C-alpha cells in the first residue's frame, strides 16, 4: 500500500514565479492495484511519482509505504522496494556495458555489492530464456553493449532490470511515450505480464488514453494538482475512451488551449 497524505508542494517559493502544484493532495494505492494516471502537461503526474520515489521532497505532508512513514527516507533506500522505468529508455540501463553485465548488475539489487564476481556465466541461459519471449532478438546479443540497442530494446531491458529482483511497487513514468506504436505495444504487454506475474502494485503515467483504459484496474485523471476522476474495477471497465476524452477536452478548454 502506498499513501500520500496532505501533500503540499510549491515550485519556486518566494519568487514571482511561485506556483502551487499540490495543496492538501491525498492519494492512496491499495495492494495489487494497477493505476493508470492521465492528465495534461503540468497537472502533477510526474511530480507525484517523484514525491513517491523521493526524487523531490514535498514541502509538507506524509508518504506512507505499507503503513510505514518513508517521508524522510532517501531516494535510494525507498527504491529497494520500488522499481521505476522512465520515459527516456537510456535512463534505465548502462549504455557502455553489455546486456549480460546490465542484467547481472540488476539481479544483485538488494544484496551486497561486494568483491564477488558480478557476471556469472552460468546465468547465461537463464537470461536468454528471459529475453527470448520478447521477440526483440536480444537473446543472441548478450555480449552487445546496451548503447548499441534501439530505444524499444533498451526500454524492454530497463523494464526487465527494474523488476528482476523481488520488489513490491512498480512506477512507470510514460515508459512507452518515446517508442514507436509496435514497440510500445510489446513493452505494454511485457509490463502487463510482469505486473500480473509478480503481483506488483503499479502506478503508470501515460498520455495514451487507450493504454490507460485497456491496462490496469484503476484510472485517475489529474488536473492542476487535483484528482478529478477516479474509477476502479467494474466502473473503470465500463468507462469509454470518448468519455475520458470528453473530460480531457473540458479541462483543456478551461485552461484556454
Amino acid at each position: 500500500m502506498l499513501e500520500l497524505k496532505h501533500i503540499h508542494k510549491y515550485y519556486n517559493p518566494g519568487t514571482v514565479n511561485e506556483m502551487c502544484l499540490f495543496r492538501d493532495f491525498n492519494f492512496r494505492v491499495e495492494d495489487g492495484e494497477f493505476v493508470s494516471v492521465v492528465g495534461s502537461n503540468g497537472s502533477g503526474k510526474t511530480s507525484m511519482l517523484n514525491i513517491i520515489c523521493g526524487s523531490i521532497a514535498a514541502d509538507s505532508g506524509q508518504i506512507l509505504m505499507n503503513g510505514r512513514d518513508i517521508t524522510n527516507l532517501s531516494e535510494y533506500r525507498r527504491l529497494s522496494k520500488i522499481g521505476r522505468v522512465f520515459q527516456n529508455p537510456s535512463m534505465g540501463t548502462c549504455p557502455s556495458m553489455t546486456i549480460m553485465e546490465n542484467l547481472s548488475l540488476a539481479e544483485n539489487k538488494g544484496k551486497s555489492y561486494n568483491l564477488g564476481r558480478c557476471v556469472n556465466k552460468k546465468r547465461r541461459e537463464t537470461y536468454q530464456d528471459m529475453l527470448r519471449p520478447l521477440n526483440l532478438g536480444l537473446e543472441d546479443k548478450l555480449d552487445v553493449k546496451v548503447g548499441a540497442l534501439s530505444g524499444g530494446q533498451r526500454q524492454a531491458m530497463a523494464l526487465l532490470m527494474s523488476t528482476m529482483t523481488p520488489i513490491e511497487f512498480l512506477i512507470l513514468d510514460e515508459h512507452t511515450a518515446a517508442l514507436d506504436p509496435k514497440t510500445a505495444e510489446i513493452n505494454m504487454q511485457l509490463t502487463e505480464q510482469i505486473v500480473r506475474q509478480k503481483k506488483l502494485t503499479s502506478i503508470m503515467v501515460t498520455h495514451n488514453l487507450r493504454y490507460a483504459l485497456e491496462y490496469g484496474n484503476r484510472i485517475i485523471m489529474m488536473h492542476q494538482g487535483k484528482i478529478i476522476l477516479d474509477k476502479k474495477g467494474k466502473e473503470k471497465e465500463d468507462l469509454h475512451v470518448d468519455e475520458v476524452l470528453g473530460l480531457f477536452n473540458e479541462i483543456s478548454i478551461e485552461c484556454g488551449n
Partner: protein
Amino acid sequence: MVLFISVLEQGMIYAIMALGVYITYKILDFPDLTVDGSFPMGAAITAVMISRGINPLLTLPVCFLAGAAVGMLTGLIHVKLKVRDLLSGIIMMTALYTVNLRIAGRANLPIYNKTTIFDNDFINGMLNGIADYRTILIIFTITIISKYLLDWYLGTKSGMLLRAVGDNDRIITSLSVDKGLVKIVGLAIANGLVALSGCIFAQQQRYFDVSMGTGTVVIGLASVIIGTSLFKKITVLRVTSSVVIGSVLYKGCVALAISLGFESTDLKMITAALFLAILVLGMERKRRVKVDA
C-alpha cells in the same frame, strides 16, 4: 638504449598514476585535480620513510592507503558538502601542498644511498648480473600487478557499480545503492594508485620535491586519452592495458621533444602542447551522425 630504458621506466611509473586518472576521468567522469597533490604526497611519505631506514616494501601499501584517504576526502567534500567536482579537487590539491611540506619537513628531501625497493640486499643479490635492467624489471612487475588488480576489481560487483555510476548514475539509485558512496570509493582507489605511483617515482629518482606534482594530472589525462583513442579499435586489448601503453608513449613523445633540442625548462610547455595536440587529434570526427538516439 639508455634513453629507451629511461622512457620505459618513467612511462611505467606514471602508468600507475594514469590508471588512477583513468578511473576518475573515464569511468567516474570526474575531473579530479587531487592528483596533483596526492602524487607528491606519495613521494613525500616515501622519502621520509626511506630516510628513516624503514623497510622500503612498506612504503607501497602505506602510500596507497594514504592516497586512498585523500581521495576519500575529495569525495566527501564533493558528495556530502555538495561542492562541484572540479572545485573539490582544487581545494584538496591546494591543501595537500602544505600537507606535503609538513610531511617532508622541507621543500626538498633527497634519499641518495638509502635502501629502496630498487636498491637493497635482496634485489642486488638476486638480479646481480643484470644491474642495468634491475629498475625496469621491478617497475614493470609492480605496474602489471596494479593493472591486473584493477582489472580484477572492475569485474567484481563493487567494481561494476563503479563503472555504472559514471555511465548512468540514475541506475545506481534504482539499484538501491547510495551513488555518493560509489563515487567516494572510486576516488579513493584512484588516488591510492596515484600516491603509489608517486612512491615509486620518489624511489627511482631518489628525491622528493614539493613541486614535483605540478602537471601530474595533465600527464595522466594525456596518457589516458592517447591510450584509449589509439587502441579503440583493438578490442582484445583491455582499456587498462591501453592506458599503460599510452603512458609509455606519452613519455616517449616528451623524450623525443627533448632530444630534438628543447631544454628541460621547456618541459611543461611541451607537456601542454602535446596534451592539446592529443585532445584535438583524439576527438571523434564523425559527430554529425549520432548513433544513440
